[in-house]
């Protein structure tokens, strides 16, 4: 197998990527880089352009504009050397149902250039990693959905790619298998593999990704670490007060507190935007009570990526 030398610090360098389908611009000037050992997340709702970006990065479709360089080599559909550096885990299952897990792994391993003892050893290692050693000889059409998902990922890992590309790998997976998949990705990152991970699950992006790009309508709306992205919202917390009594008078009273930036009254309670919610909470509950509101429950919501997405695009992540 020909070794692919990493020529640059960035394992993946995407620059000015554009892809159009007729009148629709699915990807519009996307640029980002991923370093070795880094897990980079593309977070966005369905239809945001994540899979189209992945398709160009993996050399499945050409870009209309811009470049993709993987391990220092230009990636295009005709490029085979750059493809040795990637392991793709497509969103849809990509395994042969009439073959066993071992046969699936060996087939794709051979195409990646593995052979002989290397192939056998890596096949066994991956089967162990994805927890399918005891079912390796069964045809995959007899597998559960979670087992198929794990094999789908295992095939992408077999040749120890420099860049692992995972396109929504946990869609339709049961919680146990999902956790297993996330743990595997965390391990790979620790071992130094660069990972490009797309998801529309905020929790996965927060758990796995060193840096996250928030994608919507084919563009990167913001990029950075989780904490960097959260600061885009102004770093404010939300406090929800539920209860009865005079909520209107309470709202007026609370607007006068220094920590409170904004108050909404929906009739059944108040939603407040505050800086440093835990510190301000005691004064807010006391003020609401003094204004005639009988508070029955209190909730502090810290800012998260959902808040960031809402802040940047004006819509919820799962819209």
């Amino acid at each position, binding site marked *: 197998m020909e070794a692919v030398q990493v020529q640059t610090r960035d394992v993946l360098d995407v620059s000015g990527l554009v892809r159009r389908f007729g009148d629709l611009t699915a990807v519009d000037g996307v640029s980002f880089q991923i370093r070795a050992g880094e897990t980079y997340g593309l977070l966005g709702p369905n239809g945001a352009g994540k899979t189209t970006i992945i*398709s160009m990065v*993996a*050399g*499945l479709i050409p870009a209309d504009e811009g470049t993709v360089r993987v391990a220092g080599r230009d990636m295009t*559909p*005709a490029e*085979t*050397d750059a*493809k*040795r550096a*990637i392991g*793709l885990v*497509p969103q*849809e*299952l*990509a*395994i*042969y*149902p*009439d*073959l066993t897990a071992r*046969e699936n792994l060996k*087939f*794709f391993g*051979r*195409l*990646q*250039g593995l052979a002989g003892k290397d192939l056998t050893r890596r096949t066994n290692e991956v089967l162990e990693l994805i927890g399918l050693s005891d079912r390796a000889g069964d045809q995959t059409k007899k597998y559960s959905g979670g087992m198929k998902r794990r094999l789908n990922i295992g*095939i992408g890992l077999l040749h120890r790619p420099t860049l692992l590309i995972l396109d929504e790998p946990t869609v339709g997976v049961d919680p146990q298998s999902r956790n297993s998949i996330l743990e595997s990705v965390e391990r790979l990152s620790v071992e130094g593999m660069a990972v490009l991970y797309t998801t529309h699950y905020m929790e996965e992006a927060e758990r796995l990704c060193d840096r996250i790009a928030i994608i919507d309508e084919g563009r990167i709306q913001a990029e950075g670490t989780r904490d960097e992205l959260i600061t885009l919202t102004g770093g404010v917390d939300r406090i929800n007060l539920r209860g009865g009594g005079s909520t209107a008078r309470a709202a007026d009273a609370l607007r006068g507190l220094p920590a409170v930036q904004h108050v909404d009254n929906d009739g059944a309670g108040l939603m407040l935007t505050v800086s440093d919610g835990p510190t301000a909470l005691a004064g807010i509950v006391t003020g609401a009570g003094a204004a005639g509101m009988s508070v029955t429950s209190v909730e502090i919501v810290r800012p998260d990526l959902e808040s960031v997405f809402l802040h940047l695009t004006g819509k919820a992540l799962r819209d």
Partner: protein
Amino acid sequence: MHGLWTMVANDLRQRIRDKSVFIFSLIVPLALMGVLSLVFGGLGDDSVDLKPATVIASADDAGPLGAALLGAVDSLEIMDVTVRKVPAGEVRSETQASGAALGIIIPAGFSDAALSGQPAAVQLVEGNGAALETGVLVSVVQGIVDQFAAGTVTAAAGGAAGLPDEQLAALAREAAAGPPLLTLTEGQAAAEQLSLRGTLVAGQAGLFLMFTVGFGVLGLLAEREQGTLARLRSMPVTGGAVVAAKACTGFILGAVATTVLLTAGSRLFGVSFGSPPVVAVLVLSVVTAATSLTFVVARLVRTAEQANVAQSILAMVLGIAGGAFFPVQGTGFAATLLDLNPIGAFIRGLGISAGGGSLGDVAGPVAVMLGFAAAGLVLSRVLPNRGAQA
């Protein structure tokens, strides 16, 4: 090349494992051959078995020709004939009553009249059944009488020329005793025509080849539907290698299935297709043609289901037009179209091969099949790509 053969081996393993290739490429066509053979060809071989026949004859002629005529009928090699002599007046009724195949009335003085150049007539009475045996006997008698007529014409010509009577009789005898004008010889059909069973075997092999090669290139659609095509395209193999691997798979399956069908068909139905090398060239040519057609289909359809429908329609049209079920003939432009049908060319080539034809003799059908393949490949490059290769 390593990637190409890895993909071919993988495809073949899957096709063998899912067993559909065995069903559609071997079991169904062999079963269909058997059924069609029973429907069109009966249980025996292609030769016709003539039943024993009885001839009722009057022999009032005292000369040699009447006796010679009955002797010839009695000693036919192609069927067992019994000649029973009765008075001339009873020939008709006895033929009708006994169920004989034929009645022959040879009038008195028949030989003398024929030998002297005078008009002479033999009356025939067909049996009630008027079966195949009757037709054969009528033809035989007609041939012998024509021979006698030659002697009569010769004698008449001699008389007109003023030859003496002795010489006229000698000439007439010589003419009548000459080589027969009509002979019956058992033999094979024309060089480009297979027997009924041979046509069925070759036709079904050609027809189902169209389905078998579909397991190759059209497999791209199945790969796309099960998601593996995207993964293959992310591997360090070219897109051309992926398509070529499918074509190789279809070609190998087609060549093996057609060879097995011809071999099994020839054993089961007692058909010989002639020289194995010539047959091999014909098989490879028709498989090439069929494979090229799958490239065209793969270009046009979007789903595996559409591909199956399109492939079935093409297989049936080409198979029926090629003579897979019964001979189809046309004139003018239609005849030219039929001649360009690869399955028709395949059956024609096997006919030539079965008749002892060499590689040179099958050059025409081979050229038709390879030309079809070339046209298919060109067409597949020209057509807009909306299918599996998109």
